[in-house]
């Protein structure tokens, strides 16, 4: 059997020599890729002055490039994407229809307006375009500009669009990116890089993108590469172990921007039970937050606090609602959600144990690995709440809105809220407990370029913020003119 090849791309050059075999996640797809050890000295940009060519470009030039790239990322016309998509069916944690839909959506990320909106709201285009002046109280004229940096990106493999998102962030900042592709998505960034090379092989934006695969945790390689003379920043997405692993290389001169492992929750207020229509509305929105990309995103809802009441009537309401959510989940479009690729075995053991004793928990569905809604019959989540995955969520009944704050902890990212009217009560309090993103129920998977992420502003953090002070004794008090004591 011949294995597919994932080439190494180093700044415009496609390399297919020195191939080694690499096992895919779960042993499901092996592929060949150049041995990164053989190219380690070529992976970093080297002298940071080599970023200068990017400064011959204007923001408009970068947008032009993005738009042209967007046109070439039209799935039906791009052989690289088609091939990558096909191969990703066997590496992705999701299923073919979801993977394919993600690939088909890539081109839409590259609209001129969308990118401008993202940059304006998170950095401000003018800071990327040149020095932004202001006059301070003491008369100093201050200029600030955001520069690019040599950055390593450890991208997560749970959603296809993350690779493109990373590339766009890199381009607008005029940075140099080395993308370490994840084992569960080794092909997407590569397909985009190869499209860029075909489109404009010598363009500075093409020339500042490197895509490589090596097994995360390869200390011999990482110890050499993750050094301040090679990199200024590492942007790491991922699970606890991988982030923890990266922190060992962090030192003065090398900054970590960590997009930590996160979980998400939802809060359903009592008005959801006002009538049948609102129950159905809340159910389908919640189903979407649970089921989107088969719950493989950190944005996906897992624990859901529901103000149904905890008396007998309340529990009846909750269980009926749980049934609605389950039905709505099965009805989601297959571009968003399907029966999971394989149901987590450990989780199944927990769910099945609850199924045999319905005193404290009611399990709806899940027998065929399609996903399940677990309705707690007491106001507390299941003990294995942190394991919820593969379209399995836990609805927890409560009486008061204030009890919902338990939904949120230090690892919470998104909180979906329904109905909108209770958000104002919650949005000033939830962040104190850990919530980082509050959305209208149903929109958890609609992550926005223009918004902060994980309680930081990654795009701002990915730039180097340089200041230039202009002062003279005539305008600004001078240190050397201070009186002696």
């Amino acid at each position, binding site marked *: 059997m011949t294995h597919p090849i994932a080439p190494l791309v180093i700044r415009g050059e496609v390399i297919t020599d020195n191939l080694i075999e690499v096992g895919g996640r779960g042993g499901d797809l092996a592929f060949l890729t150049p041995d990164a050890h053989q190219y380690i000295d070529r992976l970093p940009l080297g002298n940071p002055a080599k970023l200068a060519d990017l400064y011959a470009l204007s923001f408009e030039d970068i947008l032009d490039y993005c738009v042209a790239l967007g046109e070439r990322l039209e799935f039906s016309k791009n052989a690289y994407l088609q091939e990558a998509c096909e191969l990703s069916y066997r590496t992705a944690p999701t299923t073919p229809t979801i993977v394919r839909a993600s690939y088909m959506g890539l081109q839409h990320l590259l609209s001129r307006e969308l990118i401008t909106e993202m940059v304006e709201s998170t950095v401000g285009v003018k800071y990327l375009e040149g020095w932004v002046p202001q006059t301070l109280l003491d008369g100093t004229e201050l200029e600030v500009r955001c520069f690019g940096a040599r950055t390593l990106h450890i991208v997560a493999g749970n959603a296809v669009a993350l690779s493109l998102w990373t590339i766009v962030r890199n381009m607008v900042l005029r940075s140099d990116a080395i993308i370490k592709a994840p084992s569960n998505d080794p092909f997407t960034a590569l397909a985009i890089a190869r499209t860029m090379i075909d489109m404009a092989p010598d363009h500075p934006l093409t020339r500042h993108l490197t895509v490589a695969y090596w097994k995360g945790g390869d200390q011999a390689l990482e110890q050499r590469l993750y050094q301040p003379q090679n990199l200024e920043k590492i942007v790491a997405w991922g699970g606890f*172990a991988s982030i923890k692993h990266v922190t060992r290389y962090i030192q003065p001169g090398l900054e970590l921007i960590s997009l930590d492992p996160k979980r998400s929750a939802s809060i359903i207020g009592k008005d959801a039970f006002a009538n049948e229509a609102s129950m159905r509305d809340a159910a389908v929105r919640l189903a979407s937050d649970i089921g989107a990309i088969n719950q493989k995103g950190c944005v996906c809802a897992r624990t859901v606090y529901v103000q149904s009441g905890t008396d007998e009537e309340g529990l009846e309401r909750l269980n009926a609602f749980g049934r609605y959510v389950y039905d709505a989940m099965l009805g989601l479009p297959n571009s968003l959600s399907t029966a999971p690729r*394989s149901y987590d*075995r450990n989780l199944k*053991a*927990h769910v*099945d*144990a*609850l*199924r*045999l*004793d319905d*005193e*404290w928990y009611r399990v709806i569905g899940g027998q065929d690995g399609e996903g399940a809604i677990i309705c707690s019959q*007491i106001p*507390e989540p299941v*003990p*294995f709440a*942190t394991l919820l995955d593969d379209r399995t969520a836990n609805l927890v009944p409560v009486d008061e809105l204030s009890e919902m704050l338990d939904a949120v*902890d*230090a*690892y919470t990212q998104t909180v979906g809220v329904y109905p909108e009217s209770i958000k104002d009560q919650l949005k000033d309090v939830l962040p104190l407990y*850990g919530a980082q993103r509050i959305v209208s129920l149903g929109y958890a998977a609609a992550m926005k370029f223009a918004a902060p992420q994980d309680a930081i502003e990654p795009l701002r953090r990915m730039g180097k913020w340089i200041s230039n002070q202009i002062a003279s004794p005539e305008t600004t008090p001078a240190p050397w003119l201070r009186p002696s004591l």
Partner: protein
Amino acid sequence: MTRTREEQVELLLTDPVGLADHSLQCWVQMPRAEVDELQLAGLKRRFAEMRERIPVLKKLADAEGVECVERLDDVVPLLFEHTMFKSYPPSLLEKNNFAAINKWLGKLVTPELAEQIAAVDVSACKGLDDWFETMDREIPELCLCHTSGTSGTLSFLPCGVREFEKAAQVRRLHAWNMTGPDTPDPQMHTAYPYYAKGYLSHLRGTAALARTLLPDPSHFHAAYPTTLSSDVLHLGAKLRAAQAKGTLDRLVIAPELLAKKKAFDRQQADMPQHLAAFFDEIANRLKGKRVYASGTWNLLHNMAKAGLELGLEGVFHPDSFISTTGGAKGVVQPEGWREEVMRFTGVQELHESYAMSEVVSGSHMRCAEGNYHFAHTVIPFVLDPETSRPLPRQGRQTGRAAFYDLGAEFHWGGFITGDEITVEWEQPCTCGNPSHYVVGAIQRYSEKNGGDDKITCAATEQSHREAMDFLNTLEG
């Protein structure tokens, strides 16, 4: 003595050493075809007895549509996951709601026992230690024990005193090297480098062994004369879970637990004296005596290291029986630990075994070839790790280990482990023991996938220490 098949099955279930006429040789050499046949018959009996009577089993069997057992594999859909024994809401423990826990336990056991459990007044129990003590006192034939997990939830295993006894009797065959029911009592002692008492399953097992192997309690020598507190262990597990979830700041500690901590502080202060007395006892009273010592490898190794540092070597009689249970449990075993244990104790060989809390009767002894031979009292299964379907009982198979514990009398004995094993079903082992056996290393799936999810016996010390450290910060 000729017995009917029926009688043999009865013995396997109720008095396994009787099946071998109390002879180690006879026990070890039981032909595998005969064992297979008895096990199937034993399983059929257990299934017939329990199918309709244990509520949780009935529900599962109804759902799976399993009405009868013709082949061993028929029972596979009914093997319990570890999750079964901790499927109660953790808040019940926070609230000391042991009545609700008892009600839940009642669904896991036969109706007679469930009734007894329901009848115990546990409303005044102030914590786990209190509860265990009450249950021990009120239901003498029950030997409730627990394991602990970093999920913060303890598993409760409704085992019987008799189960532990039967397992201890099989162990006695080995430790006394028995040749028949009249084998003279070698007047063994036990040196146990840990707590004298506790409700963690391996402490329960140790207590049963002491009762069965030793002439009287004065022959049992524990390093610490106190009880290992299950409340403190539970707090350790909860801390880990809260740490992992980032909710350590919200953990509420009951005042009873703080009081318990004070008591522990006093005990802690006495630990060095206890240890000194322990080694003094080993050096003087146990010198040259036949000793039975068993524990996890690290407990035994720590004892050996400490003893060797004190200049103690070859302290016990060479016919002593030194035995380890459990695997490495995620800890890298240091080079030469076996040799150190043997040098300290003075024995020529270590008896290693593979066992787990949830399968009381299943201690699988390691032979000279390094293979673990299955105990006759448990039926081994190898399951596909993904689907849990049984792999064929032929050739050599690697997969998830599962067992049916024929010794379990109150609860359903089917259990799926988290261990990956390779079983040789056909080729007999060159050591001469005819049973089926495990070849090669035993690995936990969770370790394979990075990280263990359990506080195993090898890690209780650490969990205990973490809990104490945390309580110290609260007091200040």
